[in-house]
Every structure is written in structure tokens, then in C-alpha cells.
């Protein structure tokens, strides 16, 4: 990919550039926001107090990252209600991996899910280190340094689970169930993906990252006795039968998402709010 010149400040982007930047930011922000909220389901339910604190902290990290990306969308004039509270849930672009409820009481589910997600996140952030959009690029180092702990956490737990028969079986079930949804992380939003690559907003294509992710995940899982099959890829696309019915990226979500979104926005609607409540005025808004 040819090196591309830096893009301008947010208010000076052409329509085409802005559309590509927005598509990239929505995907990053929505994935982090939705999976963070899912992780909080485990608060006070995780198997030990250590793991409880760890998963709550990971959720907080992901919310912090979602905020960093939503902040950059606010550069374009959107408000927090536009981006979250009053948004049409069908316009969310997160992968369906992030929205699925956990199999009841199954710690292996959250561990496998975060393992699959964080390996993908690692590659995605790596491809943004050299982004042509400076405001995004400047945030990658900080986010990556926090994400590294998530990968360590998931990989350590995964090995621990696979060390015993019951844990390995549960992890195997979770992989069988979640692997297709994790592939959805690399599905395109639409043809805007070509623009994202052409403008140098990221330095690796989705296809390229997916290929590496499949090999990494395959090697790790098989080395700890968990079976996984590589998906069929033709002309750069994963075969339909290897993908779930809903991938999320294109706005098609599972029924779980509307329930989840209702839960997230319940208080906002119930109290008839029209803006995001703050403990104090945001100095940026003055």
C-alpha cells in the first residue's frame, strides 16, 4: 500500500474522507461500547474475587476506549445522545460477537469471547498505528498499552481452563458457538472499506488481518487441545456457511441486540431525558 499523506483537521475533510473516517470510528467505538456493557454482566458473578475485579476493570477499559473514539465523532458535531442514547439501534456497526448474551453461568464463554475479540483488536490497532488521520493515530499507543493486559488475561485463563477436562469441554463448546461470530469482526461495513484503505486510514486490509488472526487463533487453540476449523475463504470473502446469519457490521443484528439496547437506554428513556446527564458541566462545552 502506498504511503498516503495525512488527512486534514476534522472540519476540513472532503465528504468522501469524512464518510470513511466516520465508518472506521463507528466500528471501533460500537464494538468497544457494546462488549464493555456485556462484560459487566459478570460483575459480582465471576468465579473468584480476583476475576470479578479483572473483568470489571476490562469493561471499564473498553468503555474508556469507546469514549476516545466517540470523542472523535463529536468532532463532526454529533452529541452523546446522537451517538448512543437516541441512536437508531439498527445503525450500530458492532460485530454480533459483542452483543450475544453469555451462555448462562459459563465463564468459558466470556474467556473465549474476550480471547477471540482481543486478538482481533490487537491486529486492528496495529493497522491504525500508521493511520493517515492524526487525531486517531495519536490515541493508538495509549489504547494498545491497555489492551495488552486484556490479551494476557484471556490467554492465561484460556490455558487454565484447557488444563482440565471440564474446562476444556466448556471452552470447546464456546469456541464452536462463538468462532463464526468472531469472524464477523472482519466483515466489511460496505464499499466504504476500499476508501478506508485507499485513504491510508488503516495500513492493512480486513482480509489481510483476518488471515493472520485465523492462523494465530488456530495455533493457540489447537496447542491447548481445542479444535477449530479454518473457514473457507474465496476471493477474499468467508463462505456464507462459515458466517453467522447476522454479522452486525452491515447493520444486521441478532434479536439480542434490540433487547440489549433497550436495557442500555432504559434509564435514559424512563426519566425522559434529552441529553446526557453529567455530574458537572463539561469544560469542553463552555
Amino acid at each position: 500500500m502506498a504511503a498516503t499523506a495525512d488527512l486534514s483537521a476534522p472540519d476540513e475533510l472532503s465528504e468522501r474522507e469524512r464518510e470513511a473516517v466516520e465508518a472506521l470510528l463507528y466500528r471501533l467505538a460500537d464494538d468497544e461500547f457494546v462488549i464493555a456493557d456485556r462484560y459487566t454482566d459478570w460483575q459480582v458473578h465471576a468465579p473468584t474475587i480476583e476475576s470479578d475485579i479483572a473483568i470489571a476493570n476490562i469493561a471499564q477499559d473498553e468503555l474508556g476506549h469507546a469514549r476516545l473514539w466517540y470523542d472523535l465523532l463529536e468532532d463532526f458535531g454529533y452529541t452523546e445522545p446522537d451517538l448512543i442514547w437516541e441512536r437508531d439501534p439498527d445503525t450500530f456497526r458492532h460485530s454480533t460477537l459483542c452483543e450475544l448474551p453469555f451462555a448462562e453461568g459459563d465463564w468459558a464463554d466470556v474467556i473465549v469471547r474476550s480471547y477471540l475479540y482481543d486478538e482481533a483488536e490487537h491486529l486492528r490497532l496495529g493497522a491504525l498505528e500508521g493511520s493517515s488521520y492524526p487525531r486517531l493515530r495519536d490515541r493508538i499507543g495509549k489504547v494498545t498499552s491497555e489492551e495488552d493486559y486484556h490479551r494476557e488475561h484471556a490467554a492465561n485463563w484460556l490455558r487454565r481452563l484447557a488444563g482440565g477436562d471440564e474446562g476444556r469441554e466448556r471452552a470447546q463448546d464456546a469456541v464452536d458457538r462463538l468462532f463464526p461470530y468472531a469472524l464477523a469482526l472482519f466483515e466489511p461495513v460496505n464499499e466504504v472499506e476500499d476508501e478506508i484503505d485507499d485513504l491510508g486510514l488503516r495500513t492493512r486490509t480486513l482480509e489481510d488481518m483476518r488471515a493472520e488472526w485465523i492462523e494465530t487463533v488456530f495455533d493457540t487453540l489447537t496447542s491447548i487441545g481445542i479444535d477449530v476449523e479454518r473457514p473457507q475463504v474465496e476471493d477474499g470473502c468467508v463462505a456464507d456457511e462459515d458466517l453467522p446469519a447476522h454479522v452486525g457490521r452491515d447493520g444486521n443484528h441478532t434479536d439480542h441486540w434490540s433487547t440489549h439496547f433497550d436495557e442500555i437506554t432504559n434509564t435514559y428513556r424512563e426519566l425522559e431525558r434529552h441529553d446526557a446527564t453529567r455530574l458537572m458541566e463539561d469544560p469542553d462545552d463552555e
Partner: protein
Amino acid sequence: MSSEIDPTPDPDAEYCAYTDYTEGEEINGLPATGEDTEGVERDVWDALYDIEDPEMPISIVDLGLIYGVAVEGDRAAIDMTLTYTGCPAREMLRDEIREAVASVAGIESVDLRLVWSPEWSIEMVTEQGKKDLREFGLSI
């Protein structure tokens, strides 16, 4: 289960998984402390020094959160960061900084920029800050 323990260590044994809190890189010019400044700029730094982290007894300057101060006429421009992206005290701290700096004689307006690069790390903490944190009970 036998209660006898084999005293010979297993040569292939591995440590339990642990998290290595790797130290960050040293960045030229950081931490910024306002050393050698004078006049209104010095007063701005003093005002910043008076602000403590909400969770630990350490000045935000010694913690390394302030990346730069520029005073032009009656305007102060400040670059700051946070230790953590999910910092719940984000708005509280920013509000406190704006108020403290705006109350410095000679300053009418404050332009406070939140930046994430270079990323904050332990290397940004000043020697005084490390001392304060050790006294607080942190190993640093």
C-alpha cells in the same frame, strides 16, 4: 492424598502467570514541571502544583499529567493527559484545572487540551512524585 512433599524442585516448573507492569519509555522534555519559568507562567505552574490527584496524595504535576503550559498575553494554553483512558475523574480534574488556572492573576482564559500522545507511563512521574507515592505505600 499423601502428605509427603518432594523437597526437590521440579526443574521444568514454571512460574504462575503474572502481569509485568512494564515501565514506559523516557520522553524528551517530560515530565514538564515548569522549571525555570517566571512571572505569570510560574504562577500558572504553581496553581497546577496545588492540584492533587483525586485518589492519591500527589500533585498532578509530579504525577506527570501536565505536558506543557504556554502563556500568551492573558491566555493560558495547557496540554494534559490522564494516566488511564477510562479515568472516571476526567471531567472533575479538568474542571478543577480550568478553575485553578483561570484564578491566576493575569490569566483571563484557559485553553485546556486533553492529549493521549505520548502516552503517560511511570516514567512521567517526577522524583518528588515517586517519593510521595512511596510514602503513600506504592512500590515504585
